[in-house]
């Protein structure tokens, strides 16, 4: 395992940025582990959420922005609800994802593609169009729908629409995305 120079490798600006964007005080975490203990996704994480908090205290930017955990957090709010120090941990996970996106990292590519496909659909139609999202997802990941087996179950139920529900204010939605992207660039 690597030896870390805890002074030289600590990125103070990164800590400050996470604190500013999340409104949380990183130093308040006393590493009790309650968030990890309650997180249903710990088994799938490469870094348990309490260690995400620890690495954050140590200013380990790259480790965090390239980890899988931030993409696998479901924002289930278990950590936030139970943190003895009232830290909104789920919000910090969200903020780390925002930063990872901005810096071009996506360690769980499939997750990102799925979410992007969802948002594309919303941008295009004003509402999410389930079949469309799946199609985009399959196209972008280059895999077959891994859930093919579900097809026969769900299709006869008549629940998956074959046409998107366009809304009248679709342009307004597109403008929300446009303005947001402009803001991000400026």
């Amino acid at each position, binding site marked *: 395992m690597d030896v870390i120079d805890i002074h030289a490798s600590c990125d103070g600006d990164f800590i400050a940025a996470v604190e500013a964007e999340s409104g949380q005080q990183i130093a308040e975490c*006393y*590493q*009790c*582990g*309650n*968030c*990890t*203990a*309650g*997180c249903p996704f*710990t*088994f799938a994480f490469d870094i*348990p959420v*309490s*260690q995400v908090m620890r690495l954050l205290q140590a200013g380990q930017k790259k480790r965090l922005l390239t980890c899988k955990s931030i993409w696998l957090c479901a924002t289930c709010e*278990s950590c936030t609800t*139970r*943190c*003895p*120090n*009232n830290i909104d941990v789920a919000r910090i996970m969200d903020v780390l994802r925002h930063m990872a996106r901005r810096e071009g990292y996506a360690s769980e590519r499939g997750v990102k593609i799925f979410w992007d496909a969802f948002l594309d659909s919303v941008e295009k139609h004003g509402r999410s169009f389930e079949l469309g999202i799946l199609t985009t997802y399959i196209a972008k990941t280059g895999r077959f729908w891994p859930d093919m087996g579900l097809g026969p179950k769900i299709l006869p139920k008549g629940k998956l629409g074959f046409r998107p529900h366009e809304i009248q204010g679709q342009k307004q939605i597109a403008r929300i995305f446009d303005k947001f992207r402009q803001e991000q660039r400026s």
Partner: protein
Amino acid sequence: MKIGVFICHCGSNIAGTVDTAQVARTALEFPDVAFATDTMYACSEPGQEAIVQAIKDHGLDGVVVSSCTPLMHEPTFRRTVERAGLNRFMFEMANIREHVSWIGKDTEANTRKAAELTRMAVEKLRRNMPLFAKQFEVNKRVLVVGGGVAGIQAALDCADGGREVVLVERESTIGGKMAKLDKTFPTVDCSSCVLGPKMVDVAQHPKITVHALSEIEDVKGFVGNFEIAIRRKAAYVDWAKCTGCGLCMEKCPSRKSLDRFNEGVGTTTAINIPFPQAIPKKAVIDPAFCLKLTKDKCGVCAKICPTQAIDFKQQEALFTEQVGAVIAATGYDLFDISKYGEYGAGKLPDVITGLQYERLLSASGPTGGHVQRPSDGREPKTVVFVQCVGSRDKSVDRPYCSGFCCMYTAKQVILTRDHIPDSTSYVFYMDIRAPGKMYDEFTRRAMEEYGARYVRGRVAMIYPKGDKYVVRGADTLMGTQVEVEADLVVLAAGAEASQGAGKLAEKLRISYDKYGFFLESHPKLRPVETNTAGVYLAGSCQGPKDIPASVAQGSAAAAKVLALFSKDKLENDPMIAAVDIRRCVGCGKCIQVCPFKAIKEVDFRGEPKAEVIETVCQGCGLCTATCPQGAIQLAHFTDNQILAEVNALCLA
């Protein structure tokens, strides 16, 4: 008025950066200064003699010494001028060492500053008045509130010191939490074996009166002369007649009463003596469960009692005690674990508190010392302990460490192994706090010799699965989530202020922190005193404390009381407030702000006026700054005196 001024060199401490001779020469020009000189060491024998001599030679009415901080030598010089026949308040000090010579090297600026500070002192002294302390009688009885181990120790030490003690206890027996414990750390000796004899001593001591089932209703008066109103709750048993034979308990049909002594583990009878060693050993009827008192049925106890002690009509009683000092020793309460919904606490029968576990371990407890699950009586093989429940947790407003739960948990895992050799204990902890003599060795022993498996991390949830409980936590050292299936879960519930502590503090006029723990006068140097003269603290009412610390404080508080009572008369500090009755309009604002309730309203020829109770006033001056009429003035710090200092600086 003739004033003498002495400018001290303090060796080179002052003289090194202040031209003391120059300051003395300048001082001679100040009004009323009849004599001024510099002096090598003002506080030394010869230095003090020179002051005495000057007072006599020049017929001085007052003295200013410019030297070190008054917090150091003001009392010294007051005694000096007193020796020369002056009132000790005809003295002022200017601090030209800590506030001048030691913080700057510029001799010229320092000299000017020293002269100005001296001038301020002179101007103030010109307006000083001789002040005389009032002497008053001391009632040499002491009231101890709370009969836990701290209160017991305080009571015994005061009584052994020859003073009469009144011990007021809210429950029907003294003993507090310690009476409920099985064994005690770090020696693992039996709690009732050490506490029991002390309780008997209390009962038998000719100088101690115990009022059990009683609480403080009201406190009047001040140090040396408190008048305490005490309310005694109805026991429905005439204790003068009850012999504690226990026959009533055997026959009482209401067997499902809440067993408060056993922390609700098991039940008891509506009439009961909480435990065999209770002091006083008297029966009490719990009116919530007695069939006679709830439904007017039964009455069996009254028939069976050989001394006809039962009295269903008994009422509360109110009486007063006169004492000269009070020791508050009301201890702590356990944090209410049902606030942890994620632990199922309060709902799941086998998720219990540490104190409940003590009762399960205790040979005199509801299970006769057999560790059994409350739900089905089965012997647990896997016991999980969770530390810091209701402590170090901001989300439940308990950010502080309860201090003793790390240690009692270690004790409990050791005892668990002794009771059930083939059991395994897990302890979820955040840190282990064991900073006493033999304490860390003790917790190490729990791990090394008793095989307790300590897991560093908090627990997120506990839920039932079959007849077991899944405890899901983290092992932060491994960096993983962990689960363990437990038969019994013991939550190390933390300590919080005893119920009603805040109200009691207000009656006693002492301060308490935002959690309800009483505030000591100084956290390091006056740990058992309060800011109210004559009121002392002992034990965990001041903050979570283990038994050794509680006992030490009980003794310390007793020593303070004995020292107070060693004088026949007490003297007040004469720097207190006084009301100019002509200017007072009776608005009562001063009465509202006085933190010590030292001002009362009196009737003066049909008009309300404020009057200061001289022996209660602590001299804070809050009233003086509040009074819109300038009618109430703090002696030695009057508006005139302070403004004279201001003017000496700004208008000169």
